[in-house]
């Protein structure tokens, strides 16, 4: 359901509402978060450039990749950023986040390198990421520069919240994100998070702040037991190409929509398909009773071995139906034989035993029936 997420980001915020916010969460077991981020980024950019979206511009705050990476990425998707730099701006927090280059130059131990001038139009280097207020102001400034004033809105994409959390406290990062969400001119916002780099609380905070949460999980959980490395390796390899894509969308009416898809990583990018096997979502509703409704293996074998007290056992012997008219000797003989046969088979089975005496055998032959 990646389409529905991109559509939600494209449609943006209603009047008086917070902007929709998406968290993309992954972990080491299924590390495709960045692929998903790039996918959403390129989708949203194409919507913006085609004029189909509520927002008129996009500010990409790049922490973990250099701006040229994004320019390449968008160019490969057919979006030429340089010509349309009125719509997409990249805030460079990657090259020099803490302003070291300037300080080194000041200290005099460093000759100034030739700056790469090619990207100066689209990339704006931010040198002080520790202060979230300054970052907030820069983002808002860039955004306003893109769209002008008035009713226009812009979208924000944050490369990786992990880097932000390294430099600032969780509450200031949360403050930045919530202020961006409640800003009148922000249409939508999305960010990426690697969940195993943080404590659980950080992920919980980001989920609290967002209106859509997507998480990536491996398709097959690798066994923790020592089942031989070959099996594990192939599972891990499998997990590196495919994964499960879970989405939780908080709807306006207060309900939560839960969806799942399979995600495949290919050379050209990423593709989403519906889940091949429907997961057992309804495990919780199976009635839990004191007895088990299934038979164990032993019980099944025993059941197969029980000989039922019918005349015809269905095992190929000619069926002889007792009609009560045989002579006494024959019937006695038969009875003995039958009884021993029965006893033998019963003993063989070992488990279940059914001892059956035909009702008519109990009667004395040709005795007057006792009147009731």
């Amino acid at each position, binding site marked *: 359901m990646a389409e529905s997420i991109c559509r939600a980001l494209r449609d943006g915020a209603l009047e008086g509402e917070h902007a929709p916010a998406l968290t993309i969460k992954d972990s080491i077991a299924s590390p495709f978060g960045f692929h998903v981020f790039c996918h959403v980024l390129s989708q949203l950019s194409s919507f913006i450039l085609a004029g189909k979206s509520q927002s008129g511009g996009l500010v990409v705050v790049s922490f973990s990749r250099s701006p040229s990476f994004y320019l390449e990425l968008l160019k490969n998707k057919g979006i030429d950023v340089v010509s349309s730099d009125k719509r997409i701006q990249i805030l460079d927090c990657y090259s020099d986040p803490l302003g070291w280059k300037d300080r080194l130059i000041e200290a005099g131990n460093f000759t100034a390198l030739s700056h790469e001038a090619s990207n100066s139009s689209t990339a704006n280097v931010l040198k002080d990421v520790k202060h979230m207020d300054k970052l907030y102001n820069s983002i808002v400034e860039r955004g306003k520069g893109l769209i002008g004033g008035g009713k226009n809105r812009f979208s924000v994409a944050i490369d990786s919240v992990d880097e932000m959390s390294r430099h600032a406290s969780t509450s200031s990062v949360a403050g930045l994100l919530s202020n961006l969400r409640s800003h009148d001119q922000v249409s939508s916002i999305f960010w990426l998070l690697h969940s195993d780099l943080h404590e659980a609380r950080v992920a*919980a905070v980001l989920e*609290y702040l967002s209106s859509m949460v997507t998480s990536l999980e491996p398709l097959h959980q690798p066994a923790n037991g020592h089942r031989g490395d070959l099996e594990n390796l192939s599972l891990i390899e499998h997990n590196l190409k495919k994964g499960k894509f879970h989405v939780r969308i908080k709807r306006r009416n207060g309900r939560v929509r839960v969806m799942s898809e399979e995600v495949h990583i290919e050379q050209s990018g990423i593709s989403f398909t519906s889940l091949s096997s429907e997961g057992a979502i309804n495990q919780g509703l199976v*009635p839990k009773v004191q007895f088990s409704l299934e038979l164990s293996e032993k019980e099944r074998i025993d059941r197969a071995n029980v000989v039922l007290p019918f005349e015809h056992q269905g095992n190929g012997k000619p069926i002889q139906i007792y009609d009560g008219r045989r002579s006494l000797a024959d019937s006695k003989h038969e009875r003995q034989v039958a009884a021993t046969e029965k006893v033998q088979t019963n003993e063989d089975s070992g488990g279940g035993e059914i001892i059956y005496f035909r009702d008519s055998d109990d009667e004395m032959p040709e005795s007057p029936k006792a009147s009731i």
Partner: protein
Amino acid sequence: MAAAKTRTSSFSRNISAAAPSQGPGLKCGPNGTVFLSSGISDLDKILGGGFPLGSLVMVMEDAEAPHHMLLLRNFMSQGLVHNQPLLYASPAIDPRGFLGTLPSPAASKDEKSHKHDPDQEKGLRIAWQYKKYFGESQLNFDGQRDGKHEYSNEFDLRKPLERHFLSAQRVDCVSIQDSPNLSALQDRSATFLSQYPRNDGSISCAGRIAIQSFSAPQCAYSNMEWDMLSFIRSLKSMVRSSNAVALITFPPSLLSPSFCKRWQHMADTLLSVKAIPDEDKELSQLLTGYQDMVGFLNVHKVARINTQVPVILDATTFSIKLQKRRFLVLECLNQAPVDGSSGTSYGTSGSCSGSSKTGNLDF
């Protein structure tokens, strides 16, 4: 005295005939407590009258649904309609903006029915000897309805509250996002509550405090768990000695489990709201009315002041529904009749089996 048993007879004490000097917003209850309405008449009934003055109400939010806002809005609007001053604190930069979303009391349906009734009476051919009873019961019914109507209003969530209710004398707003510690909020609460001290005389006015998303992550103090706990404790003691009710909502998923428990113990009345999954086939088979539900409300604790007798509710889980998308109602959960052909027996499906998703469903 033994624990109060539920009355089985059809006679019920008419407690709603409160001392009129206290005004329409307050109601006398057992054990010398005075209630004020939560804004949701169903919730008042569940809690045995409303929120008692001097109690601290805490609502545990669900990170995935904004249902606590419904409770907050109704609480705040009810106070303003009854002329009970309000102190509102929220992590937004401009809390005043939220006041624009408060609902207005619905146009009373009683007025319409009053108009219809005389016409209906003419139209209805009632046997003459019953007319006198009909007239009396009508009067009683109207009287009761008026009484209830005054104490607890039906709020129309689509109609904003009229501006004159939101004047600055009645509503005070505090933003808690930027304050590094809680001393500012504590001082504001203290000054607010000092206006409504509790003494043995009659109650002139009651106040309400509403704090939204107390431990929201964007607040600077949100990782100072001991400080937040001590704030709650001091607020509780201040509220207990004044004629006011404080309502605090907080997201428990952002607190460490031990502090979550401590906060829950602090509350006099503890409620929690829960989101429900959308288009869930199992849930729609299990519960009737699933389509209209927007969430669940759980009542964990009911305030008992001046008494040692606990309240044991028949049911603690209620579904939150929005009738016509306007009116908030709380309903008991009803298990849908099980389709006989599917083979599952009535007893095994549903409550006892404990659908692990829906947590503590309680029929």
